[in-house]
């Protein structure tokens, strides 16, 4: 909680909608801190959830190291790198957006958040091209794994390829779902932000959407080397 010192201030700056503290809190600082702590805990649950997937990944990497090496080569590291760059940049714009909300700079905040959503959309487009390429080669997950031609040769004599692609699609799929949820949250922030609801006195929702977006980025930072660059 590096920004723990930056607490919302009163009064509401001119031209913005004042925020009403829920009746069971004693102060808006108490409300802000409660939500912030709650969201950090929620992020911990997300990490535990992906932790289960990572554990499964490591178990099968250990069982089928050669398959995972060959599997990683079938994925396009250029596309993966592009997506990594996109997510990192969007995380940066999101952080700038949160900062702009804290300083009540509405126009800047909206611009940065729109850039972030654009990043999310770009990520999903790249993901779409990657998925369709895999499907056209018959690299389906799990039981439907049925590689064509050269792809069948690559995995000749190796078992566990179905599991590699099962994990690939499951992990990136669940991550992609998080990207969509994050983008949805930020869109909602844009709508309400445009109405003047977020300012130096109340930027909690933007802050939280930002934290969520950084988590989405962070998980990808682990997924990318594990899946695309496995040695």
């Amino acid at each position, binding site marked *: 909680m590096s920004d723990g010192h930056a607490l919302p201030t009163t009064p509401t700056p001119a031209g913005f909608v004042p925020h009403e503290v*829920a*009746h*069971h809190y*004693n102060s808006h600082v*108490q409300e802000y*801190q*409660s*939500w912030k*702590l*709650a969201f950090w*805990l*929620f992020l*911990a*649950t*997300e990490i*535990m*959830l*992906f*932790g*289960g*997937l990572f*554990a*499964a990944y490591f*178990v*099968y990497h250990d*069982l*089928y190291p050669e398959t995972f090496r060959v599997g990683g080569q079938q994925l396009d590291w250029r596309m993966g790198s592009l997506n990594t760059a996109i997510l990192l940049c969007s995380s940066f714009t999101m952080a700038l957006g949160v900062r702009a909300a804290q300083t009540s700079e509405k126009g800047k905040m909206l611009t940065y958040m729109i850039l972030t959503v654009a990043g999310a959309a770009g990520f999903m487009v790249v993901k779409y091209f990657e998925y369709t390429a895999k499907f056209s080669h018959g690299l*389906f*997950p*799990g*039981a*439907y794994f049925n590689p064509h031609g050269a792809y069948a040769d690559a995995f000749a004599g190796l*078992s*566990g390829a*179905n*599991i590699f692609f*099962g*994990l690939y699609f*499951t992990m990136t799929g*669940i991550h992609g779902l998080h990207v969509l949820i994050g983008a949805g949250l930020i869109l909602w922030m844009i709508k309400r932000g445009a109405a003047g609801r977020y300012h130096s006195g109340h930027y909690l929702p933007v802050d939280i959407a930002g934290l969520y977006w950084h988590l989405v980025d962070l998980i990808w930072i682990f997924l990318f080397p594990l899946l695309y660059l496995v040695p």
Partner: protein
Amino acid sequence: MGGVFALMIRLHLWNPNTNPTDGLFEPDTYNQIFTLHGAFMVFMFIIPAIPGALGNLVLPLQLGAKDVALPRLNLSSFYLWLIGTILAVGAIVWGGVDTGWTFYTPYSIYNDRSVILMGAAVFLIGFSSIFTGLNFIVTVHKLRAPGLTWFRLPLFIWAIYATSVLQVLATPVLGITLLLLVFEHVYGIGIFDPQLGGDPVLFQHMFWFYSHPAVYIMILPAMGVISDVITVHSRKPLFGYKMIAFSSISIAVISFLVWGHHMFTSGQSEFAMFAFSFLTFFVGVPTAIKVFSWVATIWQGSIILSNPMLYALAFLIIFTIGGLTGIFLAILNLDIHLHDTYFVVAHFHYVMMGSTAVGLFAGVHHWWPKFLGKTYSRFWSRVACALIFIGFNVTFFPQFIMGAQGMPRRYASYMEEYQPYHQLSTIGAFVLGLGILIMVGYFLHSLFAGKPAARNQWGGVTLEWQSPSPPPLENFDEDPVWVGEVYDYSHLKAEEMSR
């Protein structure tokens, strides 16, 4: 519903059913019944019971807060639970689940597809549990009354706090495990399926990584209730307050490191078995600290044998038996013999039903006058408590004996020499059921025709007793401030002496 399934199981086992189709139910139906009994009781009753029912009411009051920190999240957690339960009932209607509540692979991959629905149900209920835990942690951190420092918190709060940490950290792993199980059905991801090169034991590891901490999610809140009930009805500060508080936390920590003791016969390295066995013994230490502290609190206290206290005493006896038999099961060579027998069944019923449910009853009897502002029948509550205690022991003690003699769990038929034990157990189950029925009866009576209760029915000194009974919308007439130490009965004693 879970209870009715239990009685159906016991009725079925009245006869040995040497010819499997002779029984009250077909063997497949029997499998579905015990699965649903397990799944309903674990996921829909015991895990949410104390935090959901008592925690939501007692926790903000004991903290001097107007409400929990995130009331809307709390409501959504109830809706998630409701939707999950409806889905689970749907799974019964759609064809029934017969995997046992543990959904072990590979069997759960190849049987009926209603496992998908059941998995989704438990997934949703898991999120309900996460949200509750998260909410409680935030409430304890941020909404304490002025002056109420960590070491002045009632021990119920400490126990709920430790439980919440477990809920937040362990439940997501169950979520992803069940999601993977669903994917296994949908597109054969293969990681739990040996035919596709997967490892079914991985499922057990991931399942028990949640489900062992879940055992403590069930028992810790009950321990918290008992701590509070015992000190109030003994009119004595808790012996070893800090030790009990820390033991809750250390139980929570160690519980993450013992899951392998469910898998001594599943194939693990010898070193892992050794480590898990040792750590399982180790979890007995903080547990014993609690039991000794409770007994030491009662010692030389001014004991009032009120109804909550009777339940607390029943808890002490039952939990000690349940806890000690757990140590038997932690012994590696003994577990090889006892694994998957009725000994295990009896052990976890002593801990879950006998301790958690009795702890819940103690808590409900303790706080009922507070929240509803009504008293209940003293006479009938004693009768019910006696029936529950006797019925429970008659049901499950024989199961220790037949388990030690080798009766395996989950079988729809058995050899004739076990019949007396099974019949005794069935009789006990109905006595227990009668006790609970009586309890429901007098609570309903109290609800509609109970006499008004006092503000401080039992002479408790924690914050909830300073609020009117029943508490108003924002819990207190004016924002409370805490002064002095926790569980300080000195001024109460002076009052009683002067009378």
